[in-house]
């Protein structure tokens, strides 16, 4: 089998792509330059309720940019579609990857078509489809979510399978037995970079949102009373939050993973405290609302305590550590200690910022009349905080949640890069970048591929957050 080129049989398209890209660049520059001199674009309203702009050289440049951009997108799509249609390997590396990602494409198309058609009935999520930026961001995020979901179907070889001949080989190298290719080359141990990147997405998608969710739970449970009660409680909590924010993050991580500290069980004890928050949160949430109907309240809280408590105990109890009390038979799962550390550090770093945001919004919302109305009918403080204030703070919180998943993803990468948290052979993107950076001059691809993956996910999350913010402000 031959070495694959990037575009294979479609290489005839390459010059077209280049020309289009070059022209686009020129047109953009032209547009920027003319915008300094061009007169008012003379916008007129048509009777049918649309608006039309016409105007000189500026308008020309604008139209050129638009059409060239569309042409560029069409050519890129052609590479991907041709790759799916043509047999494996004929359309080069790009085509082959596109073919492997087929389940992701199908899932994305189905999701977008459905969401777009029902967008008027889907609330804020539906509104997202009115904003191009938001749609692009959402598409990028969902691309990685689906990639993680279908990762077992997509990968071409095992994450830990090594083929000595393919050490540091360039993208498109064929396997020695002729059954396929290392689509994005091999790393310094002869493992498939493409498959590792795909598998790495699973780890990121699993951990980042969950860890961020925990950070939010902690931030919200502390931020609400701080903002609502104010006074000394607020002063003390804010001071603590500032203290944690002032502490160097990397140093904190190093401290947490130092063997001496791990053996004292400190990270585990911290986990004991942090993971208790969601449980308390749920109990308070239900109690505050249903205490007027004691029977219903008791059933709900009992369910939460039993199920949540079981999960909680399984989570914190790990055999052969300091906290190990659940018999093996009822211990549902064991979270590896290093993942626990990742969780603890993410929560620790993010919750003070969430705390501040929640506190600020609470300070604003508690002056509203509906809060006074709740007070004057004798509602208890936690009901007011959780059912009157929190639902109305959701807009900024959702936006921040998206952004924060991005930070957490980077944080995971950083942790992996320093060899903290996850095990060294783990395919997560941070660790892979770290492993690849040593040979960057000889073989850059093992580091660049996961770096680009990380970049696109974080970019997607940022765009999504932008789109959400923009749309939530509109009516």
């Amino acid at each position, binding site marked *: 089998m031959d070495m694959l080129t990037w575009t294979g049989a479609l290489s005839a398209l390459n010059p077209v792509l280049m020309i289009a890209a070059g022209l686009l660049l020129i047109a953009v520059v032209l547009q920027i330059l003319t915008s300094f001199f061009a007169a008012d674009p003379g916008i007129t309203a048509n009777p049918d309720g649309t608006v039309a702009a016409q105007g000189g050289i500026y308008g020309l440049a604008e139209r050129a940019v638009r059409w060239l951009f569309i042409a560029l997108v069409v050519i890129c799509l052609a590479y991907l579609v041709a790759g799916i249609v043509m047999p494996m390997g004929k359309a080069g590396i790009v085509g082959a990857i596109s073919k492997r990602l087929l389940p992701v494409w199908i899932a994305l198309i189905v999701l977008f078509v459905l969401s777009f058609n029902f967008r008027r009935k889907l609330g804020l999520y539906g509104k997202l489809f*009115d904003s191009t930026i938001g749609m692009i961001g959402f598409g990028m995020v969902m691309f990685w979510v689906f990639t993680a979901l279908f990762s077992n179907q997509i990968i071409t070889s095992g994450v830990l399978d090594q083929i000595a001949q393919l050490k540091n080989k360039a993208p498109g190298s064929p396997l020695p037995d002729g059954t396929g290719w290392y689509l994005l080359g091999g790393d310094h141990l002869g493992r498939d970079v493409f498959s590792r990147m795909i598998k790495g997405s699973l780890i990121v998608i699993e951990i980042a949102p969950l860890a961020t969710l925990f950070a939010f739970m902690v931030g919200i449970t502390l931020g609400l009373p701080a903002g609502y009660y104010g006074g000394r409680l607020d002063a003390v909590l804010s001071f603590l939050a500032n203290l944690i924010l002032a502490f160097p993050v990397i140093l904190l991580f190093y401290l947490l993973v130092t063997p001496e500290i791990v053996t004292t069980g400190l990270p585990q004890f911290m986990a004991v405290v942090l993971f208790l928050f969601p449980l308390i949160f749920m109990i308070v949430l239900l109690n505050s609302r249903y205490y007027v109907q004691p029977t219903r309240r008791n059933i709900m809280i009992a369910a939460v305590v039993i199920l949540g408590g079981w999960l909680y105990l399984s989570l914190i109890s790990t055999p052969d550590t300091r906290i190990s009390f659940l018999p093996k038979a009822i211990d549902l799962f064991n979270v590896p200690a290093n993942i626990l550390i990742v969780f603890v550090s993410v929560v620790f770093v993010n919750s003070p910022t969430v705390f501040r945001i929640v506190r600020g919004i609470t300070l604003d919302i508690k002056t509203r009349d509906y809060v006074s109305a709740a007070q004057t009918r004798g509602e208890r403080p936690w009901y007011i905080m959780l059912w009157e204030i929190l639902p109305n703070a959701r807009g900024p919180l959702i936006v921040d949640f998206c952004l924060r998943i991005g930070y957490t993803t980077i944080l995971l990468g950083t942790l992996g890069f320093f060899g903290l948290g996850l095990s060294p052979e783990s395919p997560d993107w941070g660790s892979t970048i770290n492993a690849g950076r040593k040979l960057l001059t000889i073989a850059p691809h093992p580091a660049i591929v996961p770096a680009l993956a990380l970049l696109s996910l974080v970019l997607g999350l940022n765009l999504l957050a932008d789109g959400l913010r923009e749309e939530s402000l509109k009516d």
Partner: protein
Amino acid sequence: MTKWDYDGPILEIDNLSISFFTRLREIPAVMDFSCTVQPGEAMGLVGESGCGKSTVALGVMRDLGKNGRIVGGSIKFKGRDLTTMTEEELREIRGSQIAMIYQEPMASLNPAMKIGQQLMEVPMIHEGVSKAEAYKRALEVVTDVRLPDPERMLKSYPHQLSGGQQQRIVIAMALMTKPALLILDEPTTALDVTVEAAVVDLVKDLGKKYGTSMLFISHNLGLVLETCNRLCVMYSGEAVETGSIKDVFDKMRHPYTQALFRSIPLPGADKNSRPLVAIPGNFPLPHERPPGCNFGPRCDYFEAGRCDAQEITMAPVEGQDRHDTRCLKFTEIDWNAPPEVAAKQEKTAVGEVVLRMEDLRKYYEVSANALFGGGDTKVVKANETLSFEAREGETLAIVGESGCGKSTFAKVLMGLETATAGTIMLYDNEIQSTPIESRNTETVSGVQMVFQNPFDTLNPSMTVGRQIIRALEIFGEGKTDADRRERMLELLDLVKLPRAFADRMPRQLSGGQKQRVGIARAFAGGAKIVVADEPVSALDVSVQAAVTDLLMEIQRKNKTTLLFISHDLSIVRYLSDRVMVMYLGHVVELGTTDQVFAPPYHPYTEALLSAVPIADTRVKKKHIVLEGEIPSAMNPPPGCPFQTRCRWKSKVPGNLCETEVPPVRRLGNGHQVKCHLSDADFASMEPVIEVAAE
């Protein structure tokens, strides 16, 4: 570009149409609007919120934002068409020839710049004058707007001034370049009544002094009567009637104008014998306007097949000065026919005393540092020696401006705060030191509140039904969910809302509808005492009457005691049995409505009565303008709280007013006044409001 000379009208708006373009559709905000402002003339633009009056103003400034566009007609300013001017030319005119004053003074001033700099900037940019010259002019206008100590004013930042002073600065800024046209968009809505009266007075005088033409936008007919020569009534994007104040007020020729006047409490209206007539229905949304006459569906004179068959244009009323109306039937309607009198209501009998306050005081301690305490502690005396009683089925109005302690009083009564001293008796229980957490459900559900801001009173993320059911749950009403749901639907019936509203979100409701839900919620536990904190002041005029009537009706049915907090004396006179006037935490006057609204007055009541604009040309008011601002409750004046602004102070011998808090004087029949004035002085007081004989 210099100011050009022009003899004709300052502003000629001709068939102006403005639309906003959204993702879904074009929304016409103003349609076929015409008006003319002559030099030195003040034109009032009146209408309910959403009728497009502010859009007209922004259109004149050509400041419609990204999605607003003038789609037809012309706006001629001194003969030149503003709609075709370039940005460059517009920049020259804005601020120098046309100036605008907005509602919220704090938002119009740059908080990071000193007042002086902001004022001086205007002539420096528009006329390129030197810094020294600009300073001189700034000093001059600040003196003109009657601010004390102009030089200090110029050196201060906006946040160091009170709301009234800030608005005066905004007016000064608008006058810096002696504009030909001044646009005032609800300039006094955010201010207190006595401050409003002073600002309005100032605007009128300055208009005369500088010869400026004015476009005065307001929802308050009384205010327009006091400030303008001509007015234009707008409804749903169209001008429906325009003419001189006298013609429109006395000889109105459009059903909407007539309905508007019948729905506001003028002197003579009374809740029992002459109730207000609310305009039925709701204001149409801009994209749901009916065909033909926009007011058609709500009009008493509507004639199907005629009023909704064609576009209606403005038609002149014969024999009057530039009086036009947009009504097909104006020649056929008998305009002098008295309104159909709704069923007269018996005056509700007043029952036992349900609430008695004795010598209630509430002081706050304000300390400088929250974390470690310490620093200077200041005592704010929010309520001082408050004593009164309220009976079953009675409406007691509590009148006062911001900072008078009426909200604190409500908080103490509701149990959100505990009293510093004194007693509150609810039936036979002392509740002054029981916070709401330790009150029993009966007490809590017995004293409820209706809030001021309809947009804030409901939780935006809970359905209407859910919010009422929650109140029922808390008050322990109903045994099962089904019970409570049934009760909730009954409450919706009580406030005359369709039952389908139970599943709506608050954002789908109009302001008046939200306020009704708020009332339903307050009555969920069968409240005995309802504190209504300015329940209608944020609503549109036509809705106010309906909500007020609803409150009165429920009160009659349930024999509720209503504590009606308001600063609007017209509505107070209309609906209350007794009135309590508060100033800086003190009750300065207390008596029946007739006693309070007739001499002898407390000097503050007198000023308050004079300050409230009344939309009736027959009313003659005595002109009393209070100097200065309301003192801060942090730092109240010694002696009588009102002595800093009192015009009767010179009649009291010695410095009694400055040193001693006046005693409560009982003038008979429960009328009490807190003042040092002698009986002879009280006897010499003349009535502030006189209605000329018809």
